[in-house]
């Protein structure tokens, strides 16, 4: 019995190796996710991107993912595990993986890495992100039109430039409709914690906000806004089913086209380390249908979207006045340049709050 079991084990293992060998012809692509793929937000969208990749190139590639990898001491090991499993192109999909990705990238110069939303690169490590502030600008316009109280509620994750530029874009847009618009900001200090996000939404509504916007990943805030009969914007993914009468629109991360493009480059041997920062024009993200608003507001939003896509409207058009009342340097001609937006560390005038750490 024992012997036959051993033989069986050996046979199975051998079978496993054989299938591994045939899979070796395919290019192996790895993904590291910060949340569970069922978060219905950030990680969910990355996984949709991966699925789109498989659908497009499934006969040439094999994908593997590790989910729920904390941005701590385990991240480096998880990335290295993917390398050691033979993955040749690895997408690390959260800001906190920046240093671990760089460490592993330096150790394995023949493997290519793609880090989302970071700023450190290497000859074998690209970065990619989207100009979500463009979508935030459209949301700011809608919010100011739809708010009766003139108070917007904003749930922030971390006060990093990506989030700060989103808040500023929202406020700048809203001020064009209602110069006295107020925004209340709560920092959840997490990307994904439905309980905290829900608490933040409740607190914001209690402070008079009637339109809730978020830079965190779960639909919890949408659900609270829906319960309380307020309006809200989704984040990362389509959240309309959590608030059919609540969602105005949502910024949808559409990673699929980018992933397909990069993997095609890898397959063709033309992959290079790059810094990709795509906007509405390059389809790095999209806006969910504009719902729960009158036709004129919808028209305004669509016009703004077209103008931004066509490059006619820039959310950070100069002059921009900082919170301190001083005009911000205009390094991009008639708008702020990419570097200023990527490193944004100030609030614009009209935000009655203090940027944490300032």
């Amino acid at each position: 019995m024992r012997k036959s079991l051993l033989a069986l084990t050996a046979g199975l293992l051998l079978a496993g190796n054989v299938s591994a060998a045939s899979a070796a012809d395919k290019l192996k692509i790895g993904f590291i996710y910060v949340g569970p793929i069922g978060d219905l937000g950030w990680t969910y969208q990355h996984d949709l991107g991966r699925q789109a990749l498989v659908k497009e190139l499934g006969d040439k590639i094999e994908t593997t993912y590790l989910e729920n990898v904390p941005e701590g001491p385990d991240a480096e090991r998880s990335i290295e595990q993917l390398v050691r499993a033979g993955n040749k192109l690895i997408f690390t999909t959260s800001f906190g993986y920046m240093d671990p990705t760089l460490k592993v990238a330096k150790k394995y110069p023949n493997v290519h890495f793609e880090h989302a939303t970071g700023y450190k690169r290497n000859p074998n490590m690209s970065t990619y992100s989207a100009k979500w502030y463009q979508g935030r600008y459209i949301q700011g316009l809608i919010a100011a039109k739809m708010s009766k109280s003139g108070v917007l509620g904003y749930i922030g994750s971390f006060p990093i430039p990506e989030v700060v530029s989103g808040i500023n874009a929202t406020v700048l847009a809203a001020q064009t409709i209602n110069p006295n618009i107020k925004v209340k900001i709560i920092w959840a200090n997490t990307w994904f914690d439905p309980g905290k996000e829900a608490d933040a939404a409740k607190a914001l509504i209690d402070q008079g906000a009637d339109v809730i916007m978020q830079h965190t990943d779960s639909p919890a805030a949408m659900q609270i806004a829906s319960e309380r009969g307020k309006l809200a914007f989704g984040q990362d993914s389509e959240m309309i089913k959590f608030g059919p009468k609540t969602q105005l629109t949502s910024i949808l991360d559409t990673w699929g086209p980018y992933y397909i493009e990069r993997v095609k480059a890898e397959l063709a041997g033309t992959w290079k380390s790059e810094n990709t920062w795509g906007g509405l024009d390059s389809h790095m993200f999209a806006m969910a249908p504009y719902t729960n608003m009158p036709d004129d507001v919808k028209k305004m939003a669509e016009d703004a979207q077209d103008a931004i896509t066509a490059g006619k409207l820039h959310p950070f058009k100069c002059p921009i006045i900082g919170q301190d009342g001083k005009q911000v340097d205009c390094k991009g001609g008639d708008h702020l340049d990419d570097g200023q937006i990527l490193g944004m560390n100030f609030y614009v005038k009209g935000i009655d709050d203090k940027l944490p750490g300032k």
Partner: protein
Amino acid sequence: MQLALEKRAERSGTIALVSPLIAVGLTTATMIILFTILGKNPLLALHAYFIAPLTDGYSLQEIAVKATPLVMIAIGLSLCYLANAWNIGAEGQFLIGAVAGSWIAVKTQGTDAGAWVLPAMLVLAAVAGALYALIPAICKVKFGASEILTSLMLVYVADLFLDYLVRGPWRDPQGFNFPTTAEFDPVATVPLLIEGGRLHLGSVIALLVVAAAAILLGRTIRGFGIRVVGAAPRAARFGGFKANQLIILTFAVSGALAGLAGIIEVAGPVGHLQPGISPGYGFTAIMVAFLGRLNPLGILVAGLFLALTFIGGEQAQIAMKIPLDVTKVFQGILLFYVLACDSLILYRFKLVFPSRQVARGDG
């Protein structure tokens, strides 16, 4: 006829030895069923979990790296638990140690500070962890406050304190507001044992801690006192062992070890201070302490074994697309069986025949 548990007249030595084996056997059997239900080949899955990580040097290193903080913390906790002092807050002591040690690293950053930096960080971390652990210990001894509650609550205090520091005063000026300190200087980093690997000096320190604990418990009066106070408090009093003194001592030692583990993790694998430096090491170590039966060598084995399930779980996720949740279920099942089998040391099964008794007629 029904099955009942009956207390044994004395501990069963045989069961004490074989019960972990029974537990592992039952866990394996359950996992085979689970893998089959998931449609995965159970033998391949078990191979990915247990065998594959042991067959290459890289995975062995990773197991040691992962086990290092678990073993160090668990050794300290075992001393507490043996003395009947319930330190649940090792996670907080771990964080405070990390914070205290990082203080030196942050303050000396970019200066020409010499080789004294790392040793000073280790010492300060241990002292801070010990002092932090003394808060619940003193509250217990002086005021009779439940150390379980106070030590647990102090975890959140430590967590928020660390959070405040990395978001405020210690934030990396070049870090785009992200809550982290700058990377530590080389003199403030735990040296690697193998160039290009991840195995670091901390693993050696953990082994020394295991050895020291084994000597303390096995060969010294103090160690004997710890065990007697826990096992037979009245006897200990007659023997002249002071329970309160031992509570203070074990808490301090356990806090020091947790603090040391904290700074080693931060100055080693992580390289800077940030929130989330501990994926629950302080709590997982409680499991390690009990799996290792509060025995230093047992804890070493248990820590390595638990680390193996982490690494193996990851490899199973990569190689066989087995969800991460299965690894967590697996660890839970293992702990459940270990504790269940342990009850057989003190109890045994007995068939009870309800003869000459009126059957309780509620059916």
